[in-house]
């Protein structure tokens, strides 16, 4: 990994994710900081990234490195943590039962992924699928269900759904720009994770991969 990537690119990428993923555009613009719970989920995600080898922390913080280099490494780790919390926050619905369900789902999913101990490649795939699926559920499915309709039939269906679910499902639909910014933030977060200094694959893993390739 180059010095520029560690000192400039990665912190700026993760800070941009922190900024964009916190934006909620409606009638007003709000920046929502991560809750303590989301910081815990972000911490779990960082742990997973380290466990899978997508991040080798000894390449960011080590006694053999200079103080300035260690400071750069610390900045990468801290910004990764907050960006991870915000990347999860942006795909969790804003209110009601879906928010509770998504929050619990992410906790279980992160713990389950940690138990499965994936390697770097599998973790990156898993993260892309998880964040992508959550994005579609929140910004496409839930917001389409919650959007106030133009026609009478849609308004009646929405009112019926709201009544059936006791108002627990319907969400406030934000400005469409929020979805684009969220998608960009998620993509940027995944790029950031991809760029992290990774652990070199062990000899056994390399052999296994070679075997799979031959098969």
């Amino acid at each position: 990994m180059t010095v520029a990537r560690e000192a400039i690119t990665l912190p700026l990428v993760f800070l941009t994710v922190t900024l964009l993923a916190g934006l909620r555009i409606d009638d007003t613009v709000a920046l929502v900081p991560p809750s303590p719970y989301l910081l815990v989920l972000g911490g779990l995600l960082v742990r997973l990234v380290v466990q899978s080898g997508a991040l080798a922390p000894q390449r960011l913080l080590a006694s053999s490195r200079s103080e300035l280099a260690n400071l750069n490494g610390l900045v990468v780790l801290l910004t990764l943590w907050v960006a991870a919390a915000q990347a999860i926050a942006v795909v969790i619905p804003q209110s009601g039962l879906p928010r509770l369900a998504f929050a619990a789902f992410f906790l279980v999913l992160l713990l389950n992924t940690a138990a499965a101990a994936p390697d770097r490649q599998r973790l990156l795939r898993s993260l892309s699928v998880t964040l992508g699926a959550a994005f579609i559920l929140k910004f496409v499915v839930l917001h389409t269900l919650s959007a106030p309709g133009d026609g009478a039939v849609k308004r009646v269906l929405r009112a019926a759904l709201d009544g059936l679910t006791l108002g627990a499902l319907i969400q406030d639909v934000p400005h469409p720009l929020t979805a684009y910014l969220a998608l960009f933030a998620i993509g940027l977060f995944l790029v950031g994770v991809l760029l992290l200094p990774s652990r070199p694959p062990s000899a056994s893993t390399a052999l296994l991969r070679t075997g799979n390739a031959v098969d």
Partner: protein
Amino acid sequence: MTRALGLGLALIYAVAIAWLYVRQPQTIAQVTGGLSAAIGTYKVDDQAFADAMQFFRNDQFVEARLAFDRADPAVRDARTQFYVAYSYYRQGWGRLYHDDPLYAEGVKAVDRAIQLAPDGRLRVDDPGLGMHTAEELKAELEAGLRRDASDFNPMRVFRKRK
């Protein structure tokens, strides 16, 4: 060199993001105004402020607020926010009753003015005003929003707008 530059950039960016999270600016003007205020270069538009004062003295409060918004687009000037609050007070004032929504907006504006004033102390020596400090204005607005026995005092019709 690259490491020091990266650290500096990351710190500046992180501080800017933290500032945005704390201040919650609503417009680009508020963002740029806030940043220029942070480095001490923010300035109220004098012409727009003069226009606003003219409207204010003619009791054209809606027009005055529009001009005050032009004068202080970033909402960073304590004196302008004081006048905005005062315009809500004067527009909402009535002999028989006060307009609660306007008074509530006035309280928000005077709170902003107090927050922006150095040490929270704001005095405006304008002879055309009946109240010269943010505290007096805030107390008057909050009294107008309160429901108490004095609301039923028939003598209140003789009170004068400040």
